[in-house]
């Protein structure tokens, strides 16, 4: 009880001004005047989820081509305008979003609003820039292939999801990247980049009325047309799936994935707290029991991935030198079984809640970070307001909730297990 009161005192809700333009553009403004800096972000509702077979990687390739100039600005000018303003600009593609942003001093964030409006309407996607940029993306893909754990996770998603688009890698498969044409990418651009399919987030040292005026000036007249997601339902998993991946490596690794829930499912909070209990901090169960005391793993991380249309709970374990991977897998299951059969101690639950609470506050250190989180909640999590609901819901969790969720999802039939192993000697 005291804990909840303390939480409520510490947790000042994140205040956001929301505006909706007639063309469907949503604008979220978050004020933070700690430093004279503004993060301006455009989040499009498109990512690897929207890509059907044969088109994987197209959202990401478009993100790259979106830096290759418009009718107004050549590719070179584009980069240099922000550079000369001392801005930090970049973009990223995720499962449900493509995000462009620039962090700039607060007296010049208008520049980014102007450039993004241009990007939304006037991309050329020039054919002569298309081939070299595809080369860059293919190198980016190869870079990922050289990271053994990343490759293991790519396979884990592929095996775990048999039908749902969450199986596709964001960067795409190599043969799809090779096949995609300039026109494919241009059509993708025309389909998804418009105000009704985007949100603009302005976070930092900003005056909301002024910012809204600028947004209206640059975006008010652009036509909007919203694209709805197609919904896919992954058939329930009915039996454990296992695979091996052999690479030129010395240290094996183990990945386990359980099908779990999406954002706004009531069980998501328990998954996040379970993830904290198992692997967050050096007093967490995996770290304390398996890494330090038993000395059988170098690291064991857990990832609670709650997304717009579903989710998963994954574990990555790396055995210490000389430890058999099978015995690491068994020890991990022993810890999972404890969660299913024994209530967590009061102290342990309280610690996890305190950690969520503290992380909620630490995150507000970065206005830009809050901006990105708002986009995530708005597009994937049923509305930005849930950013404030989240820590409150976590504080309400009970020991029984944890056991219930552990028993419901951490079942052998609901998991996929992958071993990363060294290639056999030739």
């Amino acid at each position, binding site marked *: 009880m005291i804990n909840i009161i303390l939480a409520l005192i*510490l947790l000042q809700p994140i205040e956001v001004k929301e505006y909706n333009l007639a063309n469907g553009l949503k604008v979220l403004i978050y004020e*933070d*005047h*700690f*430093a*004279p*800096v503004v993060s301006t972000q455009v989040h499009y509702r498109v990512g690897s989820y929207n890509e059907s077979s044969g088109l994987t990687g197209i959202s990401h390739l478009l993100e790259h081509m979106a*830096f290759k100039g418009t009718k107004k600005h050549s*590719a*070179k000018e584009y*980069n*240099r305008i922000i*550079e*000369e*303003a*001392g*801005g*930090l600009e970049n973009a990223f593609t995720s499962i449900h979003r493509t995000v462009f942003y620039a*962090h*700039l*001093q607060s007296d010049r964030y208008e520049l980014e609003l102007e450039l993004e409006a241009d990007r939304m309407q006037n991309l050329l996607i020039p054919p002569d820039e298309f*081939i*070299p940029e595809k*080369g*860059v*993306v293919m*190198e980016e893909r*190869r*870079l990922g*292939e*050289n*990271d*053994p754990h990343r490759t293991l996770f790519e396979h884990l998603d592929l095996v775990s999801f048999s039908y749902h688009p969450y199986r596709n890698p964001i960067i795409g498969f190599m043969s799809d990247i090779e096949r995609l044409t300039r026109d494919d990418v241009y059509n993708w651009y025309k389909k998804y980049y418009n105000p009704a399919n985007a949100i603009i987030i302005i976070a930092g*040292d900003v*005056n909301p009325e002024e910012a809204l005026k600028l947004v209206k000036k640059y975006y008010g007249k652009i036509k909007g047309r919203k694209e709805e997601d197609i919904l896919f339902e992954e058939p329930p998993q009915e039996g454990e799936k296992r695979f091996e991946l052999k690479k*030129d490596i*010395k*240290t094996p690794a183990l990945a386990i994935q359980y099908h779990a829930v999406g954002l706004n499912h009531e069980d998501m909070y328990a998954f996040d707290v379970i993830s904290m209990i198992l692997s967050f*901090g*050096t*007093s967490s169960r995996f770290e*304390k029991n398996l890494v*330090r005391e038993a*000395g059988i793993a*170098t690291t064991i991380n857990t990832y609670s991935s709650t997304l717009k249309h579903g989710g998963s709970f994954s574990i990555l374990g*790396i055995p210490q*030198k000389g430890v058999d991977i099978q015995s690491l897998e068994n020890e991990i299951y022993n810890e999972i079984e404890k969660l299913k059969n024994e209530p967590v101690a009061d*102290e342990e639950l309280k*610690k996890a809640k*305190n*950690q969520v*609470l*503290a*992380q909620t*506050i*630490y995150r*507000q*250190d*970065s*206005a830009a970070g809050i901006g990105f989180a708002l986009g995530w909640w708005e597009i994937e999590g049923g509305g930005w307001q849930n950013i404030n609901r989240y820590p409150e819901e976590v504080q309400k969790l009970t020991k029984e909730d944890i056991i219930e969720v552990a028993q419901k999802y951490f079942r052998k039939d609901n998991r996929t297990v992958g071993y990363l192993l060294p290639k056999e000697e030739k």
Partner: protein
Amino acid sequence: MRKISLLLLSIAFAYAINIQRDTLPNGLVILTVEAHKLPMIEMRAVTYAGSVFDPAGKQGIATVVNQILLRGTKSRASNEIAQAIESVGGEFFPFTDEDHAGISGRVLSKDLYLLIDLLSDCIQNPLFDSVELLRIKSEVISQIKAEEDRPFSISKREFRRLVFSDHPLGHIPQGFDSTVGNISLSDIKEFYNQYYLPNNTFFVFVGDFQKDSLISILDEKFGNWERRKLQKTKIDAPSETSKPLGKIIHMDISQAYILLGNLGPKYGDADWYETRVMNYILGGAGLTSRISEIIREKRGLAYIAYSYFQRFKTGGYFNALVQTRKEMANEVVQILISEMERIQDTIDVVELSRAKKFYTGYFPLTHDTYREMTSIVLQIESQNLGLDYLSQFKKLIEAVKLNELKAAAQKYLHPDRFYLLIVGDLKPEDIKLERIEWIE
């Protein structure tokens, strides 16, 4: 109208950054920046006990000593320390680089006393338990082994070895699996006694506290930490090659990781700002640098192509770094060498002016959070940049002149006597260089 002017006033007030430096009688330095936006505090406890002080044959000891500080004191077991800080949502992380070893911490401001109490116990009363030492050694060795499956990690580690060879900068802070195994409990105690002194340590606190009460807690908890004369091991300047040296680490991958470079300036060297601006133009500026423009933007040869200067207190190096498919490795090497040559003769005013605009415009973004502010204050103290550095930076950049850039390029880029490290499925014959000597 009134509302707006009040708002402006509060902006100005919030951003009046006031870095204060206090010293306890035993020599412990405390740097503080009060900021009350959020009820949280960032902390770094830093000792000049980095990996350059690792004795030969015991490489990795600075890392191990630093980690063992959080693994048990005379009154608290290892897990009690972790439990105590994490129960309130706080964090402790040990960190070791070439010059420093320390603990970074983060807590809600209500837990400031707890943070300092734990820190004081860990730094002043470590137990040096033999079981914990074995665990840490095994963890570090396993981490080193796991990194060997990552071409990027191998390339960075081997490049350092190639450039600095047996010099203390020739190894990364983790050390080698062969040397970490050699570290004994008495080595640990000796290293700790030599370097972990109040007069060799500074703290940085940024966030929601009152400075006076912070100092009095620190005085209570660290005031009795005994000052002793510091016996610092002298580190010689690294020596440079007189001809190009190359090394290929074979790995069965589709890309080549190419690292090309030479020795560079250390902290405190006078021509740093010129060097920094010159490198920005060469390979430091995101997608608009010369290296990125040719290799990535025009040719599509790589996703990653950039260059940087890495400095330490006792030396430094320049490194141009590209990952490309193995068939293009030779071409990329030729481009890098020719760009190192070209920048010695041709830099134009437009490039200089663009770089200056970037640096001066970007500067406020380098410390717009508590966390980044903590890092920049750490650098200010360690590199002796002066407490007015944040207000001086713009002038230092503005003062850089075109001819100084060329001078910096001529002084710090050596296209005729470089080090070249490649990780990938390649042989020396694949790289067409005439004077280079390949090392096995």
